[in-house]
């Protein structure tokens, strides 16, 4: 059954003003039910968790732990304690880097990765091996296989979906091959999480992380999933309250998972908000969500390919435009327009109430690989419509007119 987009939009107060929000890869908007859940928690249940004997503390603890169960079911992990609440996807990755990686360990990354799935491994002084992409932006799996045979790889850290190109690495294939070579796999699901169903047991990934705020939930809460036997062997990340069993004058014993990785007061209201977002999303069939967003992205590719001088990445030098029906893409696409800097473009679009992101989108290695300093990204959410994409295309034409003026013969220096 097709989604009732108009009814869905009606649940997002921020969209009431007619805002065209196409920056969902940065953060998604929140439905009223999520906002209400957080408000209700503060109004009726607010207390710290796992600390008090009073009834209110118990209510807060139950609500917080119920959120953990909701996440467990959402990604189908085998055990509740495999779900760790963090402040966001970035902290989740840092927990793995801190606890699983030693200096000089070999890690495979892809050129598609977000800085948050690059820098944590660098801080641990791991040796990095990079998988490149082909002309269509898909991972070069032959590269990957070659590195696996040449080096003793500890971990493959890979995105589930590019936050720039929208391409999706073949996770199952990568995980099987990595395991066969004795390597573990970490999946950065920051982008994937809001667009496709994830089943960690079926994928058989060893770690997976995401943030609540890209999933129509609040900021300040993220999730780290890890296989129980791996998490149990890892040292804690942040020291403090909650993450200990016992503290003496000379040392401490860490708590069991998941508390071992949740030092300090956790994001309680945010976890409860995330629970509400997951419940809200569960009312839709994943197939319907995927179909709607697939239609949106194809419509965007089709419409934007008509714009003179606009080039959808990764075809960044004009020699080739990407296919109209690109089933591999999901969530977003990015583009450049010859002679218009993405910041000028998005500033003007913003004046028209259209929100797009410009810059390197925290993927400097990918932009360097594509030989461009910056790009403009259109990223989709469940509430976006084809009409919004048409309005965007018109606005891009108008912005081009403003920046470049009337003279068609005048060509500005291309972004280089």
């Amino acid at each position, binding site marked *: 059954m097709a989604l009732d987009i108009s009814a869905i939009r009606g649940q997002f107060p921020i969209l009431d003003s007619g805002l065209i929000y196409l920056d969902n890869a940065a953060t998604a908007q929140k439905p009223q039910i999520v906002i209400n859940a957080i408000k209700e928690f503060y109004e009726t249940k607010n207390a710290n968790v796992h600390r008090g004997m009073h009834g209110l503390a118990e209510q807060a603890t139950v609500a917080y732990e119920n959120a953990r169960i909701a996440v467990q079911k959402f990604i189908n992990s085998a055990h509740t304690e495999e779900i760790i609440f963090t402040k966001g996807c970035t902290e989740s990755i840092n927990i793995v880097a801190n606890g699983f990686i030693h200096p000089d360990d070999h890690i495979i990354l892809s050129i598609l990765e977000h800085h948050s799935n690059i820098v944590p491994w660098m801080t641990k002084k791991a040796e990095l091996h990079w998988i490149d992409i082909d002309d269509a932006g898909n991972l070069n799996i032959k590269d990957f296989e070659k590195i696996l045979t040449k080096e003793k790889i500890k971990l493959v850290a890979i995105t589930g979906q590019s936050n720039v190109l929208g391409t999706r690495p073949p996770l199952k294939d990568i995980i099987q091959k990595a395991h066969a070579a004795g390597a573990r796999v970490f999946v950065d699901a920051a982008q994937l999480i809001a667009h496709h169903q994830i089943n960690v047991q079926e994928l058989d990934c060893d770690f997976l992380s995401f943030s609540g705020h890209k999933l129509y939930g609040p900021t300040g809460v993220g999730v780290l999933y890890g296989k129980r036997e791996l998490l149990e062997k890892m040292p804690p990340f942040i020291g403090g309250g909650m993450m200990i069993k016992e503290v003496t004058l000379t040392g401490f014993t860490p708590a069991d998972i998941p508390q071992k990785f949740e030092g300090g007061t956790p994001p309680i209201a945010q976890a409860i908000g995330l629970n509400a977002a997951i419940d809200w999303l569960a009312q839709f069939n994943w197939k319907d969500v995927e179909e709607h967003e697939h239609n949106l992205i194809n419509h965007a590719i089709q419409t934007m390919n008509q714009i003179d001088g606009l080039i959808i990445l990764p075809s960044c030098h004009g020699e080739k435009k990407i296919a109209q029906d690109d089933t591999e893409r999901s969530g977003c696409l990015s583009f450049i327009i010859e002679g218009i800097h993405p910041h000028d473009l998005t500033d003007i679009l913003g004046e028209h109430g259209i929100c797009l992101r410009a810059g390197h989108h925290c993927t400097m290695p990918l932009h360097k690989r594509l030989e461009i300093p*910056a790009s403009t990204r259109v990223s989709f959410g469940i509430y976006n419509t084809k009409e919004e994409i048409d309005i965007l295309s018109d606005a891009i034409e108008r912005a081009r007119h403003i920046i470049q003026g009337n003279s068609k013969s*005048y060509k500005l220096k291309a972004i*280089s």
Partner: protein
Amino acid sequence: MDLYAENILDHYRHPRHKSPLPKEALPPEGGDKEGGDRIFITHSESNPACGDELQIRFDIKDDHIHNIHWDGTGCAISQAAMSMLAEEFENISIDYAVALTPKHIFDLLGVPISPRRLKCSLLGLHALKNALHTYHKEPLQTWTETISEDQ
């Protein structure tokens, strides 16, 4: 008032004092004696987050700045502000240049600059200030210092 006012776009489309100089023709960053009492200064600054890059070059003679030239890539605001700065502040004294503030640049642009475009509009000023620091053999100033100089 519109950020993309005609005067800004005019400078962006037809930048003043902009000329590329091959890398090999450039003296090292900082000062370089060119003979006599004329000193050639070059300095580059960038906003990596945007991909904006500017390189500023000028001569110093009799405590004045002469022959300002620049090259770079970036958004309309960064490029236009640099063009305006080069045009307006040719032949000023070093003391005057050292005392320039963001307000001078905002006045040249003639439109309100929102926080998100602050670094775009001030990249040229930042490059000029740090070029002068290299001339004076002083440590470079930070972005926070450049932005807060008129407060």
